[in-house]
């Protein structure tokens, strides 16, 4: 029955950064990072796009082997395929998540955290004691870890939150059902990400092309089931790909859920914190979650480390994590969520006319801000969408 100071469940970006920064903040602590799957970073359930500025707070992408492609442009596509090119508007990166997640886990290990793969937390209880008892199955054997603080970074399923009694449920209207192929041999601008908005193609979400190399891209879409005509995400994707890329080779396939809501009301309890997707810390407009997860992981790791050092891992002490998160990004997500709700009423005819109007602006003067300026007449809430879309 190992005793640890901080036990992190889930070795995605939130968990790996949490373990890493807990050790940086307090090197004397025992920090263990658990990964359920046999490899950190696999299977990939992600479109792998990330903004430049947020990423650089944690890792330098220049020349890194965990980067697939640098992105400089954003291309919006209307329902009728009219393109609005915004050159130089979207500095960012398409990651190779299998390598990127492993890189972050290696940073945690280099700082002194113990990383365990193929180790799944299956239950957690406290029974009024000072430490959480976490049941962990690893290669057919079962251990019980006794942890001062458990950090739940276990993604959309968020079992740690559930075990700790936090409300992590999601209303159906705020769940994006996503499906994605890796397509090879397709023709597109490899320096741009493409976002197509259409109720016929991806109701309640959007379809995307995120380049991984010349001719190779993550091609996927997200939908809200309540708005569909009865097809599931994979069926919507098959129909879109058949029309846009009928001759492509499909060399990869993934599905998953993206929670486009706002941060759960309470991300902490006695001896427990939840971070990243598990706490619904996703930009509800873009569906982007990697930078959010790393920022939350850093806060969680540092808060947990300080709390253990002070010998106070009470709910009251750990509440500071929630306050810091809400100040940093959580309050912004509340605003984005309201904008998302306002955007839901744009129909395909309006999106088509918007694209044509915006294209009358010369390309050199065409900025995301101007695109949204043209949309303002009918949708005044759109203004702040622009600059913040890829945060």
């Amino acid at each position, binding site marked *: 029955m190992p005793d640890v100071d901080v036990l992190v469940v889930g070795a995605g970006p939130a968990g790996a950064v949490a373990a890493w920064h807990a050790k940086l903040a307090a090197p004397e602590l025992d920090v263990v990072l658990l990964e359920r799957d046999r490899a950190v970073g696999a299977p990939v359930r992600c479109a792998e796009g990330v903004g430049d500025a947020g990423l650089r707070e944690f890792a330098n992408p220049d020349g890194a082997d965990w980067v697939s492609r640098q992105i400089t442009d954003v291309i919006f596509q209307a329902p009728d395929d009219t393109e609005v090119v915004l050159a130089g508007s979207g500095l960012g990166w398409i990651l190779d998540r299998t390598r990127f997640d492993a890189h972050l886990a290696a940073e945690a290990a280099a700082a002194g955290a113990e990383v365990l793969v193929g180790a799944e937390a299956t239950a957690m209880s406290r029974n009024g004691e000072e430490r959480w008892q976490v049941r962990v199955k690893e290669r057919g054997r079962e251990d019980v870890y006794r942890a001062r603080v458990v950090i739940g970074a276990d993604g*959309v399923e968020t079992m740690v939150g559930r075990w700790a009694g936090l409300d992590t449920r999601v209303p*159906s209207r705020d769940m994006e*059902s996503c499906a994605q192929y890796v397509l090879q041999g397709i023709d597109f601008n490899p320096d741009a990400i493409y976002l197509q908005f259409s109720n016929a193609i991806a109701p309640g979400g959007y379809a995307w092309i995120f380049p991984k190399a010349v001719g190779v891209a993550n091609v996927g879409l997200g939908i809200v089931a309540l708005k*569909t005509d009865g097809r*599931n995400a*994979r069926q919507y994707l098959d129909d879109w790909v058949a029309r846009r890329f009928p001759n492509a080779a499909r060399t990869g396939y993934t*599905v*998953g*859920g993206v929670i486009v809501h706002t941060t759960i009301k309470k991300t902490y309890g006695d001896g427990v914190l939840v971070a990243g997707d598990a706490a619904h810390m996703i930009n509800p407009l873009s569906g982007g979650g990697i930078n959010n997860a790393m920022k939350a992981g850093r806060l969680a790791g540092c808060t947990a480390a300080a709390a253990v050092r002070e010998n106070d891992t009470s709910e009251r002490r750990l509440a500071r994590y929630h306050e810091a998160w809400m100040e940093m990004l959580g309050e912004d997500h509340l605003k984005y969520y309201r904008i998302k709700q306002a955007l839901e009423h744009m129909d395909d005819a309006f999106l088509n006319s918007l694209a044509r109007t915006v294209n009358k602006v010369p390309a050199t003067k065409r900025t995301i801000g101007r695109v949204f300026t043209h949309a303002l007449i009918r949708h005044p809430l759109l203004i702040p969408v622009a600059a913040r879309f890829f945060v």
Partner: protein
Amino acid sequence: MRRVTPDTIAVVDLGVCDRCGLCLPLCPPEAIHLELNILTVDDAACTGCEKCIAPCPVGALAMVAYA
């Protein structure tokens, strides 16, 4: 907690399920579990609300008569 026995409950087709976990936070009574790569629906807890059915990206969940 007492519940009214539903006429139908959710079941998963493990041959189709991709283990993505999307359905877990959608389930109001938290009746869906994913452990050791196997998704299960607790038929004693499922209320038959169908909230998990349409969002499944691959259509792995369906309602069946509760026997």
